[in-house]
């Protein structure tokens, strides 16, 4: 039995400690907003926050997630109104949408420490998130807008 804290709730999962967090979230907690894209840390579709930091859940064994605060896209905000989500909506970023939970989680983690990232900083931070549909241009615009809104609200 493994105890986790996911989206501010304590949960118990009957799974092996080496099972990656991704599969526990999806299969056991029915939090399917976090996606499988590669299973190898190469695409970022599975990005969640662990104590506020963006991590790839497909490579994160449950044992390493114990005692940490895990946040998934479902817990990023109460009403899907995190500044990142609002900017994503305003710029109509998603096409198929499949990569976007991971993109938004990566972006939110970036903006939490740097609300006014430069183009280069965005490039470096977001490089691990693939979007096969090709929404990068809008992702950049949306990150900048979300950053401005974060500064304004602060």
């Amino acid at each position, binding site marked *: 039995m493994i105890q986790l804290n996911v989206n501010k709730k304590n949960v118990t999962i009957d799974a092996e400690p080496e099972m990656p967090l991704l599969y526990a979230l*999806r299969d056991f907690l029915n939090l399917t907003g976090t996606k499988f894209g*590669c299973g190898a840390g190469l*695409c970022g579709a599975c990005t969640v926050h662990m104590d506020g930091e963006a991590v790839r859940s497909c490579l994160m064994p449950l044992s390493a997630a114990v005692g940490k605060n895990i946040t998934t896209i*479902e817990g990023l905000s109460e009403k899907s109104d995190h500044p990142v989500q609002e900017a994503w909506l305003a710029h109509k970023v998603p096409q*198929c*949408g499949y990569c976007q*939970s991971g993109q938004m989680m990566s972006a939110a983690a970036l903006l939490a420490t740097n609300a006014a990232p430069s183009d280069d900083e*965005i490039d470096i931070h977001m*490089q691990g998130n693939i*979007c096969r549909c090709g929404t990068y241009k809008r992702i950049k615009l949306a990150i900048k807008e979300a950053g401005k809104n974060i500064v304004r609200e602060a």
Partner: protein
Amino acid sequence: MSHIENLSRRGFLKSVGVSGGVLVVGTAIPSMSFAYSESGTAGNVEHQLSVFVSIAEDGIVTLVNHRSEMGQGIRTSIPQIIAEELNANWDYINVVQAKADRKYGSQGTAGSGSIRRFFIHVRQLGAVVRDMLEQAAANIWQVNKSEVSAINHFVVHNKTGQKIAFGELAKHAAKLEIPAPENVKLKSINDFSLIGTDVKQVDLPTIIAGKMIYSHDVQLPDMLIASIERPPVVGGKVKSFDATAAKKVKGVVDVIQLKERSLPAGVFPKSGIAVVATNTWAAIEGRKKLKVVWVNGENQVHNSESYRDNLKKLVNKKGINVNNLGDVYQHDYDQSRTVEATYSVPYLHHAPMETPAATAVIKDGGCIIWAGSQNPQWGKGLVLEELGLSREQADKVEFNVVTMGGAFGRKSKGDYILEAVELAKVTSKPVKVIWSREDDIQHGFYHSVSANYCKAELTNDNSADNWIQRVALPPIGWLFNTDSKSPSDDDLSVGFADTPFKFNQMSMEKHEVSSHIRPGWMRSVSCINNSFALGSFVDELANKAKITTQQMWLNLLAEDRLVDPNSDTFKYTNYGVSLTEHPLDTARMKNVINLLADKANIDEKVSANEGWGISFFRSFNSYMAAATKVSVKNKKVTILEMHTAVDCGIVITPDRVKSQMEGAMTFGLAIALMGEITVKDGKIEQGNFHNYLIPRINQVPNMFVHIVKSNHAPGGIGEPGVPAIAPSIVNAIFHACGTRIRDLPVSKVLSI
């Protein structure tokens, strides 16, 4: 002529989960053969009801959409067309996804055809419903219908300003006869107020919340998850396997050998060994412990490197005539004015962000399926066959079409769906088959490796003539018939034998080749290699003539005219539609090229090591020109800026046209710079995103889309943006540094 039916009294929409509809009207959308060679394989779907409008008493208008969503925004655009003719208020529109059912007509979402083919029909449906609502109001006021008009979800009496809401009128309208669609007036294009605007995007809030359900996300009580080890070589079989260790993994329920399949490969599963488990991780871990010995079969002879070299040699020889004018072989070429070049493109793979996945459960001799599919009807037909059911028993298979996390052609094939059905049958449990990324990359249906050859001589007025063009590639037809050795006329109607250029003499030829891995339709299909060759070659001709590439295009296209590529030897298929509605119009071609050159400012002075490249391609009845600016320093290429100018006729949802073009630029950039699937001893060598590269955010530049305002019939949008991109990039590289790249990807020569 459209056939439109009043279904109000039949509780018709219950089956798709729509209730409360008081007025329900549905229409047939005629089935058509697929633009590129899907005809005959997807099965002929008869004219059956395919789109429905349902109006409830509270005024909510529910639209059942029969097209599959995969990121192109079709779930918004089709309803937008109906709402336009209906004069409905977009805030009261609710869109429901249709299940796969023959009563919905052709659901195949491929060939960029959703709007291109059904525009008028969909409009007529909206107009008919509007007419009925107007008639109902006129009856209530006892006035002539001409005195009333539908405005923004109400019918208004023009003189008095009295109005009745759509919701209230629905029950009255439901009792009326359906007017003949041809007697109902469609709105004038100039009166469009919804079409051409960016309405609220239907699925966005759900995606942003992380709540969109894709195939991977389907969960059922008691469900098992399957991960399948498939034969690495096409046509390979299991010789023996040892499942002892796999079965010991906690959570693994069973290890099942799938039934053997033989060639032609069709879109059937590859068979193999499935590990089924109570959770995804257990299935993956169990599979790692499987020991399988394969018999690889004859396709293990395949090596893509030597195969590609051979294609290139082949196209340097005279081939089989496809379409010709005069006799170029009698012509005495002036070598100083002749350009001759061979281009090649490797195997490519779709790699949608969401790998294939499907869930099935067997019920009462039939089954229920949940899967993303670009062609649920084809899939359903395959499932019926798999279960030994006839077409008449179609009701026994319920196909729930799930949103796709990208598809790009991959998800037209039903292999992954059949795998789920097969395993659900064996286990008597709901089974979800999930594909790993390695599965996706190694067991796909690949864009065919190809070689194209071009030769032409410059004319005195800086155009070109005595044009020879040849192509060699493993044809998609091989999937269904192993005797198929060369592309069909349909496959050659995609910017190869349908040249818009004005020649006195030309010879378009093809070659015959053997096939060894499964070919498939990938976003814009053979337009990819045809456009790469043509767009590069025009640039090479321009360079030889010492004129701009833009000018060379204009010279080759010559005067404004409508081109008919049909000849005694070549039947042009025009992406499945008539030349009357969708002509090959050189005026539109030149216009889009000029617009691009102007907007992208390609004649600007650039720094040393920088250059602009352009190209043009018409496909899926849309006209697309692309410009790319690059810099090449120390053998490293950086893409600086990309532009697309597009004339796709009437635009329904401009923002989704833009987003498709942005996506196409990125997709084309991947093809040009980094995409390559290689095969060794019949096995795909790539496995995940570390060796099958997809552009990252830092590799994609700022992008601009310029849309031509047009009242022409709408063309496709999902695919036409792709073909012109790769040649625009290699041309830019040439102009930046003088290196001409004829074999993709660029990463073979320059670092990226």
